[in-house]
């Protein structure tokens, strides 16, 4: 086997040095009643060429976004990925390294994380960002737990119904056996109802969590929500599933958010059937010590030279054990790198231009569809690169019809929102040409593309 370097002679010499006569003897600590008495029923080893052929066969049974006119979003976004990213993250000094516990030989990873933390702070308008979490949904759940921890005796978390359903479900899983009450805040015209929110807020509320943009692509009035939330003494958590929006719309930090979490997949990470992505997590200085996850900080070495280390580790599980701020003990290292390279390439100007282009294309599509007979745009507010339309025919049927024309039309929202039974969530990014959008519009109207 090409990954196993031992020759028979090596094995013999090693056994002699150890003082045993067979490898079998080394397992004498495993009692007889714990032994597996048969070979593993796993297929025989494949050669590299056989393996690639086989996996290619599986890969080809899938539907690549690039082969379709895809308007799918809903928490995973089809953006262009510059060639540079895969070239750089393929440097194995990055991807075959472990967590940077030995800072002297991990300065590459550490500086990259420090830069990532900085860029997340700049984008969100916050003070401190961690080295990343698993994904947007789990980061959102950890944000709810942070609010409970920091909110002392408060135990209610108010979840806007505009949060992506998978975020709400993940928060519920995390809080399943903790002393936390989860309360839904209804929507009004596609955004969090301020009236309902103020009725639900009381001195038990630790946090209010809203999407920005929310699941329907709508831009919430964060400043007003922040004011209501703070008046009640709770923290405002903003969950961002499409972070490209932050290059165009006001930063949540500038509007009063206390915690900003979200999914960073849009920034240079392949869709990859939904994972791995990356959860970003940013807070105000006051919550620095209740933050979950890894943190990198700047310091100096013995010669006074700048260097970076993992820091504030006493919050974490390997030291505080059951009293840790979270059980997480990894970050999404590889994905941190992808996001950082993406942001560095697009930079201040490019990210803004890209966000504007997404907005313009989605707006064009929205306008075109709104003119179709039987279709309506149910929400009047501003949306970013996603929007909901209500359709004159059952969404399942419509989607199937468009599939036959090579179009993935969007996501049915009726399953999660009963009052939007015929709602379709359409996402338009820079990857969708005007021709594609026009084909979609034509197909929706019942024509052949």
């Amino acid at each position: 086997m090409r990954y196993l370097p031992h020759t028979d002679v090596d094995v013999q010499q090693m056994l002699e040095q150890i003082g045993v006569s067979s490898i079998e003897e080394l397992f004498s600590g495993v009692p007889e009643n714990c032994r597996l008495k048969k070979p593993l029923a796993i297929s025989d080893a494949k050669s590299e060429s056989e393996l690639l052929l086989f996996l290619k066969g599986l890969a080809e049974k899938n539907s690549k976004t690039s082969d379709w006119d895809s308007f799918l979003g809903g928490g995973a976004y089809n953006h262009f990925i510059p060639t540079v990213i895969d070239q750089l993250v393929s440097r194995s000094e990055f991807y075959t390294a472990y967590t940077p516990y030995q800072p002297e030989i991990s300065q590459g990873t550490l500086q990259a994380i420090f830069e990532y933390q900085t860029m997340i702070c700049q984008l969100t308008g916050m003070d401190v960002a961690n080295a990343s979490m698993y994904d947007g949904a789990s980061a959102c759940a950890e944000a709810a737990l942070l609010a409970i921890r920091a909110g002392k005796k408060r135990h209610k978390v108010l979840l806007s119904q505009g949060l992506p359903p998978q975020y709400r479900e993940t928060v519920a899983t995390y809080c399943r056996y903790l002393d936390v009450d989860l309360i839904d805040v209804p929507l009004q015209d596609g955004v969090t109802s301020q009236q309902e929110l103020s009725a639900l807020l009381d001195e038990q509320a630790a946090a209010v969590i809203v999407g920005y943009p929310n699941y329907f692509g709508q831009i919430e009035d964060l400043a007003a929500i922040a004011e209501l939330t703070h008046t009640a003494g709770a923290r405002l958590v903003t969950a961002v599933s499409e972070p490209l929006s932050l290059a165009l719309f006001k930063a949540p930090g500038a509007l009063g958010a206390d915690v900003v979490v979200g999914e960073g997949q849009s920034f240079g990470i392949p869709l990859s059937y939904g994972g791995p992505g990356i959860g970003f997590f940013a807070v105000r200085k006051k919550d620095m010590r209740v933050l979950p996850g890894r943190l990198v900080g700047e310091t100096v070495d013995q010669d006074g030279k700048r260097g970076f280390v993992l820091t504030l580790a006493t919050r974490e599980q390997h030291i505080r054990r059951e009293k840790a701020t979270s059980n997480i003990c990894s970050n999404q290292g590889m994905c941190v790198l992808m996001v950082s390279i993406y942001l560095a390439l697009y930079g201040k100007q490019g990210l803004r231009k890209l966000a504007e282009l997404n907005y313009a294309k989605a707006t064009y599509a929205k306008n075109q569809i709104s003119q179709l007979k039987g279709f309506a745009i149910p929400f009047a507010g501003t949306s970013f690169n996603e929007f909901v339309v209500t359709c004159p025919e059952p969404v399942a049927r419509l989607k199937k019809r468009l599939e036959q024309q090579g179009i993935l039309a969007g996501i049915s929202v009726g399953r999660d929102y009963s009052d939007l039974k015929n709602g379709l969530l359409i996402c338009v990014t820079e990857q969708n040409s005007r021709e594609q959008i026009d084909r979609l519009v034509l197909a929706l109207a019942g024509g052949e593309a």
Partner: protein
Amino acid sequence: MDFPEELKYTEEHEWILVEDDIATVGITDFAQDQLGDVVFVELPEVGDNVEAGETFGVVESVKAVSDVYAPVSGEVIEINEDLLDEPETINNSPYDAGWMVKIKLSAPELLEGLMDVSSYQEFVEKD
């Protein structure tokens, strides 16, 4: 290692100096040495009531975290705010500039369970 004569000590490695009905509390030279470089100190607020045996603060080093237990019951009347900015004072001056809180004793007569210097020294050596 230095253990001043005039202080009382606990098994959790706090020291107490009682003057009238006011107890000043900190951690011992042994405790700071075990922890290593102290990087963060969390203190109660003035006006808080503490119970003997309950935690009232936290001392953190780079690699360890230690709760600090109140050796006596009473009201916190002063905290050493300098520690919040310069936690290393605990390493440099555990018995003097590194004091943590002053507690007004609710029952000054209840000071049993505390060790004098020789018993504490013995306790540390045994540990």
